[in-house]
């Protein structure tokens, strides 16, 4: 006890000291547009509670000035005994993309600007439209083929359509596979990051410290699920579309030049709520819960259904499962 309070005191003293050594903390470096305080900010995991609070106060002020909103930015930590898992029923999914847009509203991704073509929309969920099966008829005897020919069927990650846009979904001969961060147990993106700016939290969520990322995009190249997005420019966010309920490692507003990704709505799930995509799904195709709790939705799916994961052969061990009824 004594030791702990002593350490606490030292931490506080150190925080005070670092806060004091940055003179002109509010001076802005031109062109790259960062203050000296931002420039000298530490890695999230190396910050004391006081330092975190200081940064959060600064961010709140910045959001107020820039976007005119009053945000709350939490740093809620992972709960003991929780590892999040996700299960998606591809038989139920109708490809309506409501999850995609609910995710954007929840997580403050950049919107497409009506006037500025350099500001584009960022989406964390990509829904693939796949034909139930395609047959290319063959000619007997040619190319070792039978008259039946070639067939393409099943969850095919190469023969699909990302930008489908029919009048009504679902279409008769199609099915849909939404893909987002699979929250791998062995995440290649974390392995390649040169600065430890992205890591796996104790509840299994892969997060990014947006203020530590150098924007090298090695993680984009390493992700087998194309789940990471880059801020090619400063995000465009109209005031009325901003979700003010934020988490430091989740949906707080990003800046240009950094990577972002799905966090299973860390700002919601760590407060006991469902991710936005789960709530938005009109057909109940999305199940979410604690993999360590036998009573959770996701564990029940694992028990009762036949599940599969994408690209199991890569050894990434996703905590995102797909299933059918």
């Amino acid at each position, binding site marked *: 006890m004594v030791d702990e309070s002593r350490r606490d005191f030292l931490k506080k003293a150190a925080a005070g000291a670092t806060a004091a050594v940055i003179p002109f903390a509010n001076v802005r470096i031109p062109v790259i547009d960062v203050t000296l305080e931002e420039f000298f900010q530490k890695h999230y995991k190396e910050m004391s509670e006081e330092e975190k609070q200081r940064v959060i106060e600064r961010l709140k002020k910045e959001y107020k000035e820039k976007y005119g909103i009053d945000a709350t930015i939490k740093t809620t930590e992972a709960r003991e005994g929780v590892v999040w898992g996700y299960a998606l029923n591809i038989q139920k999914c109708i490809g309506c993309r409501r999850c995609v847009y609910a995710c954007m509203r929840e997580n403050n991704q950049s919107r497409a600007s009506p006037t500025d073509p*350099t500001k584009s929309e960022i989406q964390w969920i990509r829904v693939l439209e796949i034909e139930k099966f395609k047959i290319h008829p063959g000619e007997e005897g040619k190319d070792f083929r039978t008259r039946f020919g070639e067939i393409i069927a099943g969850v095919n990650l*190469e023969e699909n359509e990302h930008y489908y846009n029919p009048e009504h979904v679902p279409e008769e001969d199609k099915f849909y596979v939404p893909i987002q961060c699979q929250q791998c147990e062995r995440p290649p993106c974390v392995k390649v990051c040169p600065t430890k700016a992205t890591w796996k939290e104790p509840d299994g969520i892969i997060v990014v410290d947006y203020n530590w990322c150098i924007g090298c*995009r090695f993680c984009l190249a390493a992700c087998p699920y194309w789940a990471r997005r*880059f801020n090619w*420019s400063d995000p465009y966010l109209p005031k009325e579309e901003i979700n003010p309920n934020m988490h430091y490692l989740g949906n707080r507003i990003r800046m240009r*030049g950094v990577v972002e990704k799905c966090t299973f709505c860390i700002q919601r799930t760590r407060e006991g709520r469902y991710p936005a995509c789960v709530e938005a799904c009109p057909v109940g195709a999305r199940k979410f819960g604690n993999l360590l709790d036998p009573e959770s939705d996701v564990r029940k799916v694992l028990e009762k259904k036949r599940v599969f994961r994408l690209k199991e052969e890569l050894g990434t061990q996703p905590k995102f499962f797909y299933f059918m009824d």
Partner: protein
Amino acid sequence: MSKLIDFVITSIKVSLTGSRKYYAWLASLLIIVLFGAFSYYYQLKYGLIITDIRDQVSWGSYIANFTFLVGVAAAAVMIVLPAYIYNYKEFKHITIFGELLAVGALIMCLSFVLVDLGRIDRMLHILPFTGTPNWPQSMLTWDVIVLNGYLFLNLLIPGYLLYKAYVREPPRKWIRIFILISIPWAISIHTVTAFLYGGLAARPFWNTAVMAPRFLASAFTAGPALMIIILQIVRRYTCIGKPGCRLVVTDRALFTLAHIALISMLVNLFFLGSEIYTVGYAATSHLAPLKYLFFGLEHNGVTYAKLKPYMWAAITMEIIAAILLLFPKTRKNFTTLNIACIFAFLGIWTEKGMGLIIPGFIPTPIGEIWEYYPTLMEIMITLAVWALGFLVYTLLLKVAIAIEAEEVVHPSAKDKEMPEMH
């Protein structure tokens, strides 16, 4: 110490004085750098949106050129190794040109990595003390170590030897240790760079064990090819080989370099062929990027084939270069030799630059096809980095030649004989 200061001051003076042609060359490089700096200002202000790199193809011209130039830097070893290990006399005078080329190439490599960063203001996060390097997990942290180490070696070795020549003192033995270290170190820079890509299971086009060997083979073609051209230019426009000058670049040295380029080119083509065979014969879904590269990919009725003409041109140039280098008659004729060198250089620049980086992203891991083509601003920044590298190389060469040709000497050593350098 005062001698060292004098050496530095004289070097700066020498590098900044020259003929009208010399100034014109420096000025034109500087103008290209300024145009690029102007574009880079916009990139800093608005973000990488000014390039055509996007989430689908998340690396482009910058990283492609970086990859190629690591090879050029590594290729200096092809001169250092015969000169120091096999005591090959013809290369003694030209080792310094190779080492300094490595410096120029490394300046370009590091600049390309820096201009590719989304947050240049946070670059120190990758270093110890100022940051949290993810070492040994991330190959990029290894690359920081090997590239900067190699830059240090290639500044130290020629710098020390030139200083000793300037003050007319025989170099100490310890420099040999650094020279010997620089040989495996050269191999390491290109191996680590290959491992950046080769280790990514998400990208079947790169995820192959032949990546590092192929990188080395192509580097040892493009590097010597570039050296052959540069040495001829230097020989024409400086005192080298002229009466009264102790520096020579012999034809034999150039032909030996051509021989090295030939063998490396054959090995390179062999590796490329092995890769194409393995992927093509197995014909799994891993074939798609290669198909995109050589034939274009058809997707929902549209054919995407922007890189196809470049790739065929590259392979054609490489094969022509190999043939021209293969026959002694064309290898030892300067017209055909130069054509071979230019073709080899351009062919490899295309094949292992854009031809290697872009198809790694096409299609994306979940099947989207999105074609990349650099924007004007991106091209200007790319050219500026090249110009910067050549500017640094020119200034360094100017000093090296002036000292080695005894045009400048420390006042206290005027009457002394030039010591045996290597």
